[in-house]
């Protein structure tokens, strides 16, 4: 019987061939935790009488959500992570290194066919590398650190085939917002998504990460793609390791198959307070903007910063807009500096913050005031997400965010490209 990408990768990590809806206890290649989930995992590890980590080389803890620490309580939790890492010999990524979902792919330890478990919901990001990666909670992570394993239900898969080339000024972010709007926030719950078709093939790796990242906004467990030359070229910056790419069989069984024509897609915006409350940019155009955010694990990569700099070069952001930029990793920050991208952004009025999550989750770096509107490249716009339940968050592509920062209101970026 044919298998989907998810079924194949999970079979490779189990002691038997597995298919949708079966349960397996799988061997995991890499575990990740961040500063919102790791402290509880360390506590659970102790509660489970955990003595040592199964393989310290395969575990990364990352301090990115509130980094540097804004308050004593957080400092104590960060210290707990540092102490635990030192004692067990696992990798610790301290403040300034970047956001977890950029650092794990940059580690060079994962690639096509890998199985990765992270205590963060957007762990699905690495599906862009043809890895099965999914989020779990802290107790699951603790169980993984002790055993090297994870119990999983094999998900059914929805296949999205995207035909056509995205028009100028329209990006992967617009495409994934469109898909989420159609499938809705729970349309893929417990399932995996496979993205395929010539639109996906034409996307850069950066853009593919954006699409895989947001699979969880449809409720999905993973957002998977096949590997190709671009995947290998991207990986070769970080590792010489050879991976085993995994393709779906022609007779794989899907829960649903959806087809989209992307050639006429227009820029999209998710309006407050739901990620699936998606409309074409002109429906939201004209909404005043108080804060614009470029960054997060969805869109803080070099390509995103370049797009922003291109639009902003020799222009100034609107005087009523606070423009916050959080590069996704130190490596990206340095590359953007070298190219003059950071220079251009700062000259236009950007406030650049530490590589990491930035203001995405409302712990630091720019909490909006009551009644304010924020336009962000992030992946969630829930009420209170950025630390104030009386603020309004709009989600869009880096181009739309930056065009809006320029004019002070939500703006179609195509006139600026």
């Amino acid at each position, binding site marked *: 019987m044919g298998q989907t990408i998810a079924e194949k990768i999970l079979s490779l990590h189990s002691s038997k061939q597995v298919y949708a809806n079966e349960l397996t206890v799988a061997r995991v290649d890499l575990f990740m935790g961040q500063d919102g989930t790791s402290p*509880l995992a360390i506590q659970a590890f102790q509660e489970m009488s955990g003595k040592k980590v199964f393989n310290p080389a395969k575990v990364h803890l990352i301090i990115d959500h509130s980094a540097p620490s804004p308050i004593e309580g957080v400092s104590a939790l960060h210290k707990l992570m540092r102490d635990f890492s030192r004692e067990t010999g696992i990798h610790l990524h301290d403040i300034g290194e970047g956001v977890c979902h950029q650092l794990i792919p940059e580690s060079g330890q994962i690639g096509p066919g890998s199985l990765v478990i992270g205590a963060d919901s957007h762990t699905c990001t690495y599906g862009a590398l043809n890895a099965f990666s999914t989020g779990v*909670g802290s107790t699951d992570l603790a169980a993984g650190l002790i055993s090297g394993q994870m119990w999983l239900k094999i998900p059914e898969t929805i296949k999205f085939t995207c035909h056509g080339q995205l028009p100028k000024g329209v990006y992967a972010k617009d495409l994934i917002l469109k898909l989420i709007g159609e499938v809705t926030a729970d349309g893929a719950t417990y399932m995996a998504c496979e993205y395929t078709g010539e639109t996906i093939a034409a996307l850069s790796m950066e853009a593919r990460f954006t699409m895989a990242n947001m699979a969880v906004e449809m409720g999905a467990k993973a957002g998977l793609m096949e590997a190709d030359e671009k995947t290998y070229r991207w990986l070769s910056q970080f590792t010489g390791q050879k991976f085993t790419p995994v393709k779906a069989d022609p007779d794989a069984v899907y829960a649903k198959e959806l087809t989209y024509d992307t050639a006429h897609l227009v820029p999209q915006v998710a309006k407050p307070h739901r990620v699936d409350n998606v409309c074409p940019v002109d429906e939201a155009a004209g909404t005043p903007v108080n804060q614009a955010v470029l960054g997060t694990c969805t869109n803080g990569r070099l390509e995103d910063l370049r797009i922003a700099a291109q639009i902003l070069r020799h222009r100034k952001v609107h005087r009523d807009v606070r423009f916050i930029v959080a590069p996704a990793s130190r490596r990206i920050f340095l590359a953007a500096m070298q190219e003059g991208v950071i220079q251009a952004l700062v000259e236009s009025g950007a406030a650049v913050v530490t590589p990491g999550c930035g203001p995405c989750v409302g712990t630091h770096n720019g909490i909006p005031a009551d009644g304010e509107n924020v336009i962000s490249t992030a992946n969630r716009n829930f*009420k209170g997400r950025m630390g104030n339940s009386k603020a309004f968050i709009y989600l869009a592509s880096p181009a739309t965010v930056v065009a809006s920062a320029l004019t002070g209101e939500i703006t179609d970026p195509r006139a600026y490209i």
Partner: protein
Amino acid sequence: MLLRGKAHIFGNDVNTDYIISGKYKFKTLDMNELAKHVMEDLDPDFYQKINPGDFIVAGSNFGCGSSREQAPLAVKYANISAVLAQSFARLFYRNAINTGLPAVECDTANIATGDELEVDLTKGEITNRTKGIIIPVKPLPPVMIKILNDGGLAAHFRKHGGFNF
């Protein structure tokens, strides 16, 4: 396991940021402290309204959003005995079972705020005593029953020294 209490109704797509806002969860591991802020953005006085044993009753996709285990833990420490919903988001469901909070999938359309409920997890049914009706419960997968019966995943590991299904 027989649970008794009153229902508190919430809508569809209650996300983890509503259950416990990110601005609190990063600060502390003190779940009693977090519990005071449970559902605060949807109902600022919710914590005050809870009597020990009460239920959160919701529509579809309960707990969507982040992987934060603080969400089921804050609910549990607020003395809620179970969450009943039309459906759950994957991560919340998993985390609830792992931390020993029953997450019960059932038809919640005939439950209103204040209704007296009796939830029998062994028999797999809910009695709405106020309305005098019985609501069937979708059974949990065997792995999850095993984890719940052991008292959560940590206790399961302590007992068996690893996964044992």
